[in-house]
């Protein structure tokens, strides 16, 4: 499963780079492999990389403490088999241009059935095991369980459009779709941040960081945000006003995360000095830096008056890619690295991973800044030349996106260096 998730990561970056060039030069791609085919491959690979990676980590780390019972093992094994095979079938459908055309879930809708069945198996296996753990549960246990549960809820909600009633009103259809998508991100974040918290507790040898009151408070705050803070996706949709106001209000509680990050900055600096020789730790600390940057962006975008300009521009892409690569992928690479015991690898191997790590960080920063600049430019031009054609508006934006596409190649180099180094060290250790 870990190997499969890393292959998905490689697919994501390769398809992403090709898609960025197809975006810029569609004339050369439209007859061979057009953008509307590349984008689903890229997006689905990314989504499944994150979810498969998150589940791999939580299953592995849970069992580091206590093994699953035999029935649970069987259920999760069936989950893995069904999950992987469905994903493969999805890619086959993309290769023959069969789409379902929903944002993020661009495959034919009936394929949601095997995905759901596999997830229910995972839930059955994991929860029967989870409730039997009698010791005091550190917060990561709760976060893992929350993530698994809410992925299921949001996945079902994401598919409600297949019931005709939901499509009777376009406003309802869009609202429910983006409620589900928005909350789902919260669900996988619970799984991933759970693993990050687990790792920090293990690396620092201090279990209290996963048990104190503050961390519990922030758990509830993020759960509240998972449930109610998805409205920024649809601020401009003319739904009933309270839908917007509730989201806006809840999203402003994210300032508390921001303040808490600034307050703990000095402690972090000390911790970094102590632990920076560890590869795994570097990934985690990088994810925190990316969290900081993306949080600023997210806070801005959550204010409707600002969202009015950023919505529908590449700033949204900067937010989506900044979080999925900068935060989710960094934590997952750290957590998988820890699983693979990268600290015990030879010097040469470690050097390769370190190099991949720095290439990734630098290119991601250029990549992210390009998207923000492209977004600002598009927003500005749309505002000052309302009657202009789409091509006129996009002209200078395309120039910035060329730099973006180049940094994408560097990003591909960095991430694939790490992923391939991991894949080759997988042979050493058999896991999951």
């Amino acid at each position, binding site marked *: 499963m870990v190997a499969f998730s890393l292959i998905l990561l490689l697919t994501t970056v390769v398809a992403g780079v090709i898609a960025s060039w197809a975006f810029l030069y569609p004339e050369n791609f439209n007859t061979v492999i057009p*953008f509307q085919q590349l984008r689903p491959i890229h997006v689905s690979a990314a989504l499944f990389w994150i979810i498969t990676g998150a589940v791999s980590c939580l299953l592995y780390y849970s069992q580091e403490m206590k093994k699953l019972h035999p029935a649970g093992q069987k259920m999760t094994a069936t989950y893995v088999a069904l999950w992987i095979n469905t994903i493969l079938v999805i890619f086959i459908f993309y290769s023959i241009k069969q789409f379902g055309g929903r944002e993020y879930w*661009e495959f034919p809708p009936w394929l949601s059935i095997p995905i759901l069945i596999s997830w229910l198996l995972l839930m059955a296996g994991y929860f029967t095991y989870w409730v039997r753990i009698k010791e005091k549960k550190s917060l990561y246990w709760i976060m893992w369980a929350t993530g698994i549960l809410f992925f299921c809820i949001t996945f079902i909600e994401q598919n409600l459009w297949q019931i005709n009633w939901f499509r009777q*009103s376009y*406003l309802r259809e869009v609202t429910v779709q983006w409620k589900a998508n928005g909350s789902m991100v919260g669900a996988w974040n619970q799984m991933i941040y759970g693993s990050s918290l687990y790792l920090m507790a293990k690396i620092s040898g201090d279990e209290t960081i996963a048990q104190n009151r503050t961390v519990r408070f922030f758990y509830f705050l993020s759960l509240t945000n998972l449930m109610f803070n998805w409205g920024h996706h649809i*601020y401009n*949709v003319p739904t009933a006003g309270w839908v*917007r106001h509730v989201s806006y209000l809840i999203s402003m509680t994210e300032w508390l995360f921001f303040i808490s990050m600034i307050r703990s900055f000095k402690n972090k600096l000390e911790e970094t000095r102590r632990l920076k020789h560890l590869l795994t730790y570097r990934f985690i600390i990088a994810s925190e830096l990316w969290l900081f940057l993306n949080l600023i962006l997210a806070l801005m975008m959550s204010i*409707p*008056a600002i969202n009015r300009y950023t919505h529908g521009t590449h700033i949204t892409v900067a937010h989506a890619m900044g979080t999925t690569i900068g935060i989710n992928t960094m934590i997952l690479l750290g957590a998988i690295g820890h699983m693979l015991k990268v600290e015990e690898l030879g010097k040469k191997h470690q050097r390769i991973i370190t190099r991949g790590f720095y290439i990734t960080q630098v290119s991601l920063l250029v990549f992210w800044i390009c998207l923000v600049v492209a977004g600002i430019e598009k927003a500005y031009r749309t505002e000052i030349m309302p009657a202009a054609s789409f091509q006129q508006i996009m002209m200078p934006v395309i120039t910035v996106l060329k730099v973006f596409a180049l940094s994408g190649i560097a990003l591909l180099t960095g991430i694939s260096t790490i992923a391939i180094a991991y894949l080759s060290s997988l042979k050493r250790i058999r896991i999951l």
Partner: protein
Amino acid sequence: MFLRIWLTLVSAFAAYTTYLYFNCDNKHLSSPSIEIQQGQNLWQAQNCQACHQLYGLGGYMGPDLTNTISTRGSKYVETYIRYGTGRMPNLHLADSEIKSIIAFLSWVDSSGKSKVPANNVHWTGTYIIK
């Protein structure tokens, strides 16, 4: 204590979700005809949203199409869909398919405006959309 807070939040979530399903659309616009629904299915099967947005949601290669019908007219839209351009592929759709996609886009168009006018911004930063 922990469990109690958790259950309260989950109950609030369930209540909010149910209320939202029934009341998020307070405009009660007309429900879609069979043709419109076919148009929506085609919109999805052709993956138009990989390149286009409705209400700003979707891919950014092409323009937002929420209000193209009212701003550019259906003849204009039809030409694009039928022939494509250098950048937009020709998807080789039949006449009836193009017609139903246009019906779908008109239905979406009638639900509201994608761009919120500046005077709808409230001093608190939120929007008031009538």
